[in-house]
C-alpha cells in the first residue's frame, strides 16, 4: 500500500494505492490522524484501493469521529465498486460524507482566510 498527501488550498488530499487490510491499515490510520489536525478538510481518494477490509473501515470511522470532535471535515471520494461493496456490507456508508470527485470534495473546503485587517 502506498500513501501520499498533497495540499490543495486549505484542504489535504490523501491518495491510497493498494490493499488496506490488517497488515496495512495501521499505516493509513497514523497518516490520517497526523494530517487531520493540520487541515480544515481532509479528503481521502479511495479510487486506487483494490481491497479494503473491516480494519480499514474501522480506521475511517475512527478518523470520522475524531474529525467531528475537532470540527473538521472528513470526506471520501472516488469509491470503486469493490470498496463500495464493503461499505454496504458493513452498513456504515451513510455515516460518511461521500462524493464522486476531488473537486466536489474541495468545494466543501472553506475559502482562504480574509486579509489581515488592513
Amino acid at each position, binding site marked *: 500500500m502506498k500513501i501520499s498527501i498533497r495540499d490543495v488550498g486549505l484542504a489535504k488530499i490523501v491518495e491510497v494505492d493498494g*490493499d488496506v*487490510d*490488517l*497488515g*496495512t491499515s495501521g499505516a493509513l490510520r497514523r497518516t490520517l490522524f497526523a494530517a487531520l489536525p493540520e487541515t480544515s478538510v481532509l479528503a481521502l481518494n479511495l479510487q486506487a484501493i483494490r*481491497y479494503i*477490509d*473491516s*480494519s480499514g*473501515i*474501522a*480506521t475511517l*470511522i*475512527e478518523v*470520522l*469521529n475524531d474529525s467531528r470532535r475537532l470540527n473538521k471535515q472528513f470526506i471520501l471520494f472516488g469509491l470503486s*465498486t*469493490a470498496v463500495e*461493496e*464493503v461499505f454496504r*456490507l*458493513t*452498513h*456504515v456508508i*451513510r*455515516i460518511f460524507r461521500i462524493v464522486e470527485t476531488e473537486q466536489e470534495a474541495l468545494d466543501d473546503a472553506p475559502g482562504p482566510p480574509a486579509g489581515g485587517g488592513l
Partner: protein
Amino acid sequence: MTGFQVSFAMASDPRYLPVVRGAVGALTAAIGWDEAECRAIVLALDEAIANIMRHAYQGRSDGLIELQCRESADGLEVSLLDRGEPPDLSKICAREVGCNLPGGLGTHIIRDVMDSVSYQRTESGNRFLAVKRLRKNT
C-alpha cells in the same frame, strides 16, 4: 471428479492475508461465483483469519493457522483451525448495525456473506466452520 480444494498452514502474520485472498479468489471463481460474490467470500474469509490473528493470537505473528477450502456438492466449505485463545462468543455480532463505533464489523461481514457459520472448541484448537452455497441459475 474431485472438487476444487486448497489448504494452507500459515503463521498468524498479516502478510499472509494477500496470499490467501489471491488463492481463495481464484478458487471461488473456478467454482462458479461471479466477481462480486467472489469478492464478498474472499472478504469474509479474510475477516475470519484476521480475527484469529487479532484475538486468538492477540497480535502475535508466530501462531499456526490452518485453512481448508473445499468445493462441496452445493458450494464451498471452509474450515479454520487455530491454537490461540478461544473466541468470546458473546462479542460476535454484538455491534449495533449502522452505528459509528469502529469495532466488531468483521463478524457481521462473515455472517452476512456466508450461509452458515459455527465456532467449535476442540481438542486440537478453535475451529471455525463456514458454508457458502452456490445458487445456480436454472
